[in-house]
């Protein structure tokens, strides 16, 4: 019947998303100026934290007692002191950049590790079901209910404060969330008819989970991870503020806030600038995460609609001429 002679015989069938779908996120981002701004801010912070530190590391640690508490917003001592100096005369601007690297590195590491571990365990839990699933979820509940700050305090009291230990603590306290989300999403996707169709073809359960369900769970996890970056930055800052997160020479924003605590009335900039940095970064991540979730949600589609043109478009039909019944 069909020889396929009318079809060109490609060696491989190209796989592509239609162009409109590929750039959808970018298109919608352009329509939300606030989110776009936040995305740019986050990108700038991330890029700075990535690229700049090797060049300024020494200068940032330069203690200069003659320049203690230099006031910000003047270029008298050079651009490094644009945001003032701290108690030991170190330039705030450069310290902020170094702090950015540490804070972001901790946050990203913690999120990636917790995400991967939680994702794997959550999907596995949903796959296996039964008492294993129940046990894993109870463990997640227990970790989740204990206030993370207390847990962190306890753990870091035993282990000494360091970047590695801080990341470990953060991973431990945040993993249950990913477990829950991955498991819930897996169970939800599992109800889809296409999963039943896969069974009808003869797919094994393992293949269905890895091949069919997984691509639909990943986006959810990514969106959650984005929000988590904000949370982890704040948590890490809090722990460092309490003095149990890091120790010098490692410096992150939280520690900087703690350092300036005693000088709030005389040298407010030592505390305020790192605090503002934390807030802006967390806010940007938060906004971006909400936006990512909203664009995939059909019930919120009206937020991304192109507004109707000002004047009514001319009807393409000559409307109602002639008699009507």
């Amino acid at each position: 019947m069909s020889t396929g002679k009318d079809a060109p015989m490609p060696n491989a069938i190209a796989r592509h998303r239609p162009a409109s779908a590929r750039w959808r996120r970018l298109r919608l981002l352009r329509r939300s100026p606030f989110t776009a701004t936040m995305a740019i801010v986050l990108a700038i912070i991330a890029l700075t934290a990535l690229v700049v530190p090797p060049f300024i590391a020494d200068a940032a640690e330069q203690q200069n007692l003659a320049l203690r508490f230099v006031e910000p917003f003047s270029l008298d001592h050079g651009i490094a002191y644009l945001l003032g100096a701290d108690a030991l005369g170190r330039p705030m601007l450069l310290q902020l950049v170094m702090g950015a690297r540490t804070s972001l590195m901790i946050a990203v590491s913690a999120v990636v590790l917790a995400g991967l571990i939680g994702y794997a365990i959550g999907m596995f839990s949903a796959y296996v079901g039964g008492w294993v699933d129940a046990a894993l979820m109870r463990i997640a509940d227990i970790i989740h209910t204990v206030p993370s700050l207390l847990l962190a305090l306890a753990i870091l009291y035993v282990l000494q404060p360091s970047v590695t230990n801080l990341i470990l603590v953060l991973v431990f306290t945040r993993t249950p969330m990913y477990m829950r989300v991955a498991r819930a999403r897996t169970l939800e996707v599992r109800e889809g008819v296409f999963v039943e169709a896969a069974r009808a073809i003869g797919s094994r359960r393992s293949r269905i989970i890895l091949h069919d369900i997984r691509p639909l769970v990943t986006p959810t996890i990514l969106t959650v991870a984005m929000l988590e970056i904000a949370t982890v930055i704040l948590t890490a800052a809090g722990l460092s503020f309490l003095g149990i997160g890091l120790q010098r020479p490692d410096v992150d924003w939280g520690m900087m806030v703690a350092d300036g605590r005693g000088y709030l009335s005389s040298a407010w900039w030592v505390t305020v600038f790192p605090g503002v940095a934390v807030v802006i970064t967390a806010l940007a991540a938060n906004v971006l995460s909400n936006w990512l979730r909203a664009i995939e949600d059909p019930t919120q589609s009206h937020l991304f609609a192109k507004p109707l043109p000002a004047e009514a478009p001319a009807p393409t039909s000559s409307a109602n001429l002639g008699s009507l019944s």
Partner: protein
Amino acid sequence: MASVESDPILVVSDLRQEFVVTRGLRRTRFAAVDGVSFSISSGESLAIVGESGSGKSTLARAILRLVEPTSGSVSYRGRDLLALNAAQMRAARRDLQMIFQDPYASLHPRRTVADIISEPWRVHPGILPRTEWDARVLELLHQVGLPPSYAAQFPGPLSGGERQRVAIARALALSPEVLVLDEPVSALDVSIQAQVIRVLMSLQQELGLAYVFISHDLSLVRLIADRVAVMSKGRFVEVGDVEDVYTAPQHPYTQALLGADPALMDSLDGDDPGDIAPELRERGTP
């Protein structure tokens, strides 16, 4: 209809599918499929009609062991599918395939049409050499009347009728002999239904497939089925050749169904006694 072999290819015997229902403290067994038996031959179309709650969708899934029947047998070419272990059943699935009702949910949204259609060959390695996959995908697309450019598409932009045809192409990928179709066109517009029906019927003629066709659309069933089984409350209340059942229905429920079908009604004259034949349908809800 297509020429029909005499020996049945699929014999279903006293199939039961029970669920345990907990209401408060009581647990009762509820039979969605309550002892169904039928047989079907190659090239034949058996339609199963019924209303919601009749159990017809559960029956479709029970036949293919997508839900595990409680008891009974489903004999394909002499082998009881219900007695097979998991690996044997997976292999047996090559011969019996299913088309689902919702074309918007039965295709994986993130796989291309080509990937969807070739998935059965990934699941059953050895059936078709990898080098031949693309060519065979294009052949199947042609058979269901879709252009080759659709192979690289994702299901998103496709219409309901086109998706259903992709589902048919996928089902045919393993060269099955029996297709169970669970309301395959109910979710489609009437003018598109005709597209899919024509594809299904010409494929049946060409390939000699046996169809178990679940539907609630009586006028459609009349056109495409050789025999029809009327299902209610988990049981077949009447089975017979389509024309016989439609012109001389024996069971009161069949009569009620035919009497209420808008295509067969001349007018709405007559009393409205509330629901027609509610006692023949209802299951505990007022």
